[in-house]
């Protein structure tokens, strides 16, 4: 593999890791709220969160493009107030990955939170622990495996993200090109051998992630 290939692999891994780090805290709280609390509008929020899993990724990409473009709701604010360009930058890659990884993370972590017996949390309270202490010392440690599995699955999903990324970040070598995008690009150019090399790299990473994710889900 040449230096360009390593650059693309490193960039993709870095962006996927960053998006996983961003997804984890918000996703953990969201998963807990969905698993353990009853609140008005819950099913609506739930549906919205899981929507990116079922609609075409390019549709998600188009929506992100509208929201984060210079004239968009958030893009306008970021550009004018903070001087941050999003579209066709690495930030767009991260946003696309976050949006696609988030539902998968929440889905996995939510199951883990649901599996934490309410009775343990209740007894923690009767032992004098505040709800926050119960959360950090009982709920979170017991849901840990599911959260870790969610991180791994979210990371894997982020690595494979293509449809939304190509729309909001494009294909700028050294700036926004990810493994998935470079595979597509090489197929378009008729360079199937190079594309297959990236496919092999994707398979190896995905295999490791899925195996680790499954192991974490089953670990007692």
């Amino acid at each position, binding site marked *: 593999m040449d230096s360009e290939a390593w650059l693309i692999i490193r960039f993709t891994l870095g962006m996927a890791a960053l998006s996983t780090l961003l997804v984890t805290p918000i996703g953990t709280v969201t998963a807990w709220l969905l698993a353990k609390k009853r609140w008005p509008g819950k099913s609506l929020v739930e549906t919205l969160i899981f929507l990116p899993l079922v609609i075409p990724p390019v549709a998600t990409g188009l929506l992100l493009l509208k929201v984060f473009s210079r004239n968009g709701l958030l893009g306008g604010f970021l550009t004018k107030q903070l001087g941050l360009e999003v579209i066709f930058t690495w930030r767009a890659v991260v946003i696309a990955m976050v949006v696609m990884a988030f539902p998968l993370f929440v889905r996995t972590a939510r199951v883990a939170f649901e599996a934490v*017996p309410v*009775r*343990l949390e*209740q*007894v*923690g*309270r*009767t*032992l*004098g*622990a*505040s709800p926050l202490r119960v959360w950090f*010392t*009982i709920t979170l*440690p*017991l849901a840990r495996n599911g959260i870790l599995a969610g991180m791994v699955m979210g990371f894997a999903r982020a690595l494979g993200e293509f449809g939304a990324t190509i729309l909001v970040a494009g294909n700028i070598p050294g700036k926004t090109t990810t493994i998935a995008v470079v595979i597509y690009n090489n197929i378009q150019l008729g360079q199937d051998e190079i594309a297959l090399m990236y496919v092999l790299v994707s398979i190896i990473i995905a295999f490791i992630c899925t195996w680790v994710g499954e192991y974490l889900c089953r670990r007692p």
Partner: protein
Amino acid sequence: MTVQLHNITLTLGAMNFSVDITLPGMITTILGQSGSGKTTLLEIIAGLRRPETGFIKINDVILTDVANKLHVPPEKRNIGYVPQDLALLPHLSVRRNLLYGARQCDPAYYHSIVELLEIEPLLDRRTTMLSGGEKQRVAYARAALTRPKLLLLDEPMANLHQSIKDKILPCLFQMCREFSIPLLYVTHDPSEIAGHSDQVMVMKNGTNSTDRSYLAD
């Protein structure tokens, strides 16, 4: 010690829970068949469920008063609660389970409880590695170490072999008497607590009943 449950009501599906009783004395047995509301009663006293009406007082301290929108949260009630499944924390060692609610516990008191319930050899073990009887003793010790003003036990001897019951029950009552911990003991087996209890309360269809025929069965 006096536990006063005044006009406590709660609708739970098809059952209308309704209790109005004053319980003086150190050890009270609550008897009743499955689904009679025994566990609900303990959960209400522990603050884990909010009743729809009424108030709960222990000695002169009001813990719940629906009319005045007062509900002391479970962590501030200082009421020990051992549910039927014991709820030992599976990710912590026995020692860390014991200290979970007793971080500022008097070391002498800690050692007395650990010694009385013969827990010393278990301290570094995971709770998932304990036998049924060992789990029981750890659960009682953990609740007792918070120095509760009332200890609630929900069918603690269910599913235990008679020989284990015979070993654990005397330890339990000795612990409660020695350290002056009042006890509400829920069971459906009157023989478990015969001779130890100061009084008996019978639950039937969600209400405290005066019908003692259950005891004669």
